[in-house]
């Protein structure tokens, strides 16, 4: 791998042990994947923040790296943590878990990573442009940035995204190269997608079928309304990234690279898949029974518009079961300013910032029966949280919180 003078100096340890370790990680990844050089990245999004996921070994590693004076050189943002920093006591999160979580956030802050604690940085103004190289690591954010925004990132792990943030670089391989962004599968969608939950089901099916391939969708009818469209695209990508390892998709006549290159964005020998119905996937994700302990929305993190829609669905009614909507602190404050937070809270719902149902210690809190509108959450909750999941549209989920059963 060809290194610049600056990169070689980092490798020689001239900028300290912390940065030496960082460039070692990047060089090793470059070697493994056959990169010829590094590419400059403009932002990094750091996963591996929740104490539930990384535990004491992760905390210790991050603390040690911070002690070695490693500091970020490009804008870097944290993925969701395991607690809402404001509400964790009120919500009954375990004290010891919360303390460890706060220590992880503190260690990352010392390294200069901003405590955005969100999986949808594009909802808080972090919007890379088409062709921009970035190093993001949350799987749904990666999928959205690559596909909808046309930026270029691989699926980074927590330490490799941090290493990229320290060095301002990442090895040029995978989705940083145009040839690897060509579609491996044509997906002909021959069924109606009536809600964002249906987009989630489509994503679940396609992710299962193609693993880490790149789909090019034909026949998807996107909502005309821009905010509704974003919700659907977010759900589609998140589900494919959870049931498979899809990091990039194209939609005919819509996504930036499909517009620029048309069918030239599809590999010559691409496989063809036809999707005619989604009911099998619905049966897998939507488990039996109508009992619920919790209704949870916002996976990936809700936008301001989604909070408005949910507030309007609730209106003046009271909730019989807890409803948690996950978002970033910035979006929660915007929802407060617009009066939507008050509507949700008056009904008995909670808007959680900084965390989500996948990385919060729900299992430890005795929460078992969970309803959600997220195919990503419905994929992970049974294994990560030993939960029994009901899957439905946003409206069905809000209604379930109002009725007390699904």
């Amino acid at each position, binding site marked *: 791998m060809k290194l610049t003078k600056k990169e070689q100096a980092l490798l020689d340890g001239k900028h300290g042990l912390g940065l030496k370790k960082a460039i070692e*990680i990047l060089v*090793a990844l470059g*070697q493994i994947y056959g990169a010829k050089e590094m590419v400059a990245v403009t932002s990094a999004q750091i996963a591996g923040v929740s104490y539930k996921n990384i535990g004491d*070994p*992760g905390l*210790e*590693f991050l603390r040690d790296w911070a002690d070695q004076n490693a500091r970020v050189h490009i804008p870097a943002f944290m993925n969701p943590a395991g607690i809402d920093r404001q509400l964790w006591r009120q919500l009954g999160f375990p004290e010891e878990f919360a303390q460890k979580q706060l220590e992880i956030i503190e260690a990352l802050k010392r390294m200069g990573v901003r405590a955005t604690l969100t999986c949808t940085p594009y909802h808080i103004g972090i919007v890379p442009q088409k062709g921009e190289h970035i190093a993001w690591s949350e799987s749904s954010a990666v999928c959205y940035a690559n596909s909808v925004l046309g930026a270029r990132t691989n699926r980074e*792990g927590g*330490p490799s995204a941090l290493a990229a943030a320290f060095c301002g670089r990442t090895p040029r391989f995978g989705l940083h190269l145009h040839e690897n962004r060509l579609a491996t599968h044509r997906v002909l969608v021959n069924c109606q997608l009536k809600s964002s939950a249906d987009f989630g089901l489509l994503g679940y099916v396609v992710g299962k079928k193609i693993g880490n391939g790149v789909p090019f969708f034909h026949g998807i009818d996107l909502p005309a309304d821009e905010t509704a469209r974003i919700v659907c695209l977010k759900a589609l990508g998140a589900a494919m990234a959870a049931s498979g390892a899809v990091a990039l998709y194209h939609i005919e006549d819509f996504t930036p690279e499909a517009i620029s290159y048309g069918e030239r964005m599809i590999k010559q020998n691409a496989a063809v898949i036809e999707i005619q119905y989604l009911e099998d996937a619905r049966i897998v994700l939507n488990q039996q029974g109508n009992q619920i302990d919790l209704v949870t929305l916002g996976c990936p993190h809700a936008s301001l518009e989604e909070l408005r829609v949910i507030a309007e669905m609730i209106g003046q009614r009271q909730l019989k079961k807890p409803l948690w909507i996950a978002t970033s602190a910035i979006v929660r404050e915007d929802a407060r300013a617009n009066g939507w937070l008050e509507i949700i809270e008056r009904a008995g719902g909670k808007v959680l910032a900084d965390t989500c149902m996948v990385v919060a210690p729900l299992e430890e809190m005795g929460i078992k029966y969970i309803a959600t509108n997220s195919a990503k959450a419905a994929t992970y909750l049974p294994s990560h949280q030993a939960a029994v999941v009901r899957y439905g549209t946003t409206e069905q989920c809000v209604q379930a919180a109002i009725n007390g059963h699904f």
Partner: protein
Amino acid sequence: MSILTGRVIFSGKARGKVVKSDLPISFFGAVDQKTGIIKEPRHPLQGQSIAGKILVFPHAKGSTVGSYILYALKKNNVAPAGMILEQCETIVAVGAIISEIPTVDQVAIDRFQTGDVVRIDEGEIKIEKKSDC
């Protein structure tokens, strides 16, 4: 004595007895962080310690948190002395670097068996003593 060469993932020297698995290893959930003993039920290495050994295996599987588990093993002084793989992916690569465990991949692991004594010197591997068993 035979000499094999591979690709350096994390440089350095190491010497020790081989513990070999023909199946992939998931560090997250499969290895006890405090003792270095493989605890995954039905894994061929279940009950064996990897502490101070040269761990030979095809590749890792499972959660990326595995990198941090290698770090925890190192901090608890029960990390492998070195690692030899067929194909190193990111979990082990990152784990090896942050834990400073000499690691080499692109090596035919059928040349090794548990109990061999092996020396790693950068990308070069010498089998010093074949296992008797």
